[in-house]
């Protein structure tokens, strides 16, 4: 039986997907219908099992586990896309190579090519530093799917785009182009930021820089870099980047969760942690607005949690004062329809949440939540869970 959590007018049914044998090191979760059977599944990058795992939803709200790819050292993010355009969904994986800060050339981009009964691994990029994200889209307008890559590294890193040159003799060919030579790139979401019909790239650069970059697509594989935000607070801890049209005005906005405090295992929430909304005003102008102050914010997801037609935001906290058991680890920001947000706590456990996703798990038209914890020694695995779902339904 699911546990129940009340939050504002919403009741959440809480269920944990446990495994029990491995350490709790979930790097990324997503809600996606990978097998296209009409039921959303949960795609997980597990940095303890070094695997990309699908929790396939079967009728009755149950999940069955399927390992899509293993021997992937610390997969940080998986992007679902029909790369080979054969009608089924493939998975492109950003492989960190080391969960701990390290500057060696251990990163990779690996394709898990869907061949029906199995996923075949192809290394698309190697001999680079730790890769934190890879996103897919036709970046040069030639009809095939290219990739944007965040090479986080540590002291050194870069943002790349990989030009798809096709598959010949069973081997994929991608040509790498450098967009930025900064370390600490976490996410590189792709979308049409200027409404000109082609795909632009955004990148959040954390570590010591704390900068938000966009790369305007000029066509034919040419990009113009634009820095749209640079925090003078080099400790702010940018932790991810979400592209979404939060105000539904037809222009893609950006959400920036801030609160990465992983430098020390016993880190505390800071007054500047929370979430910024970069509202796209058009013509490459963005207006930033703080929509939440929430200690240790590490990830954000967007969905219509209360089913009122506007987009709400869910935030999770990784590093916090967990010695205070009353602190929430997951909250949602209720949108009043005019992008004024009110924060509601959802839960206090599990703690150490590094990733969150929204999507409809029970086909009721409202967004549900899935989140994952990541804990590293010497911190203990008390009050953590690999993966937890909160399925929303109307409250009393």
């Amino acid at each position: 039986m699911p546990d129940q959590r009340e939050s504002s007018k919403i009741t959440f049914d809480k269920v944990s997907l446990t495994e029990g044998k491995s350490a709790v090191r979930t790097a990324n979760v997503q809600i996606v219908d990978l097998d296209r059977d009409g039921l959303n599944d949960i795609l997980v990058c597990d940095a303890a099992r070094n695997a990309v795992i699908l929790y396939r939803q079967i009728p009755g709200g149950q999940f069955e586990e399927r390992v899509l790819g293993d021997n992937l050292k610390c997969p940080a993010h998986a992007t679902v896309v029909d790369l080979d355009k054969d009608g089924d969904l493939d998975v492109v994986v950003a492989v960190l190579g080391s969960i701990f800060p390290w500057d060696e050339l251990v990163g990779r981009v690996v394709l898990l090519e869907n061949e029906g009964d199995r996923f075949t691994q192809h290394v698309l990029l190697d001999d680079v530093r730790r890769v934190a994200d890879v996103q897919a889209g036709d970046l040069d307008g030639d009809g095939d799917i290219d990739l944007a890559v965040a090479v986080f590294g540590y002291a050194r890193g870069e943002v790349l785009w990989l030009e798809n040159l096709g598959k010949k003799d069973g081997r994929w060919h991608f040509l790498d182009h450098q967009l930025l030579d900064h370390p600490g790139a976490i996410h590189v979401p792709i979308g049409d930021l200027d409404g000109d019909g082609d795909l632009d790239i955004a990148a959040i650069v954390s570590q010591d820089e704390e900068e938000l970059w966009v790369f305007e697509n000029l066509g034919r594989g040419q990009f113009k870099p634009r820095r749209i935000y640079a925090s003078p607070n080099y400790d702010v801890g940018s932790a991810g980047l979400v592209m979404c049209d939060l105000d539904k005005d037809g222009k893609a906005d950006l959400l920036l969760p801030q609160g990465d405090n992983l430098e020390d295992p016993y880190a505390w929430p800071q007054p500047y942690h929370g979430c910024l909304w970069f509202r796209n005003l058009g013509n490459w102008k963005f207006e930033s607005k703080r929509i939440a102050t929430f200690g240790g914010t590490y990830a954000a997801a967007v969905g219509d949690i209360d089913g009122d037609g506007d987009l709400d935001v869910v935030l999770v906290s990784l590093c916090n004062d967990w010695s205070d058991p009353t602190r929430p680890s997951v909250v949602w920001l209720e949108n009043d329809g005019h992008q004024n947000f009110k924060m509601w706590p959802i839960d206090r456990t599990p703690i150490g949440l590094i990733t969150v996703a929204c999507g409809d798990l029970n086909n009721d038209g409202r967004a549900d939540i899935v989140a994952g914890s990541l804990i590293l020694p010497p911190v203990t695995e008390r009050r953590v869970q690999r993966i937890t779902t909160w399925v929303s339904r109307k409250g009393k």
Partner: protein
Amino acid sequence: MMAPIQKILWTVVLLELAGLGLVWRMRARPGPLPAVDWSACMMEDAVAGEIREMEKRLQINDPRGWAELGATYRAFGLFPQAEYCYRQVDKLSPKDRSYLYYWAECFDLTGQTRQATKRYRQIIRENLEVPLGVRTPQYCWLNIGQDRLREENVPAAIDALSKARDLPRAKFLLSRVLIRSGRAKQAISLLDDLLRDAPGMVEYNQMKSWAEAALGDQDAAQEFYERSLRSRQELSKWDPTYQEVLERRKRIGSQSWHEKSLQLEAQGKLREAVAWSRKAAQAFGAEDRLQQLAKLELLTGRPQEAIALAEDCVRRVGASAKTLDIIGVASIQLGDRARAQRVWEQAIELEPTPNLYAKLAELRYLAGDAVEAGRYRSMEQSQTGKDAWLDNDLITALDHFEKAVALYDGHANTWFYLGETRRFLGDIPGAEAAYARCLRLNPDHGRARRGLERLGKNGRK
């Protein structure tokens, strides 16, 4: 108007009151410690147990006891409790200023920058030399500068950082802020100073590259960017007091048992080392502890046990080259070469090291497979060359890359690094040939293409 005698009397009364206040402040018994919910804490039970014992042993009028407890709380993330301890030291021993810096750090760690700055300024005013020697006031300016940045007050940050210019970290941070403020020229002068003392420092070269780019000199930017790639010398992000925190963590809880095992191993006392290692791993099954125990089992002639432990480690935190290597070595001891080859091949996929390639080459050689042995020896040379390259030892790197391509000429990345090395050493035709060879093997090698382009560009100059 007050008569002189009245003035004297009032002064005496006020002085007495002040004296009484001081005596009361000094003798006041400190209030209770902020409560800790030990069941919610993230530290292991052994650590919590030791801290609770320290609490019990504390003499509440002993400032040194408070300082010690404060330092322990601080090391394990109980910052409000640590701050409370330093407050008690301040009450009990106000003339002792050795705790002020740590007290300020507690405020910093909990985001109370104003409170932290107050203590740092006190240290600066009194020109104290604890805990960081004569540079203590400069570290205070550095921290004040960082606090102002956390408050997004850039002018105040520049002012504070400018007062800590003997500290490389402060100078570096100042250069970063100056570039952002459109003062790249000033930043370059600071970076040149830093590079004189540490020419290989990754961050200095990288920042210099960005400063040059900001001033529009793309060639200089490229030069310093490339230098930043060929170094492993990284600037510490930490205040020197953080080392004290790390040392304290090693002395408490199961980490102290793990450390003891390492010491005993270094002394050759392997049996005793195994016992402490086992105790540490059972208390907290972290990867390094399981690996240490497995390694000790191997060294004491128990390969089966080593394999079981390494497999447990893989189940728990995933495979790593180091853990798989233990399984490989143990498999050889047990005569299972096929398994050793399998796990070492898996290991090089995770982290290619010269040592692993050498072992694989030896196995293939023993199996009579000279071709595959040669390929692995080539990869061993290539990886050794890359290590030298990353340390900017280009002459050594060149030697290894050339040996690598002589042993096996089908590895595109080796040709790429050979091209890069020859370019940096000024061998333009040699670099061109190596890049071309790389691109024949892998036409999608973007870095080799860019290397060739740079060659053309520099050749025209």
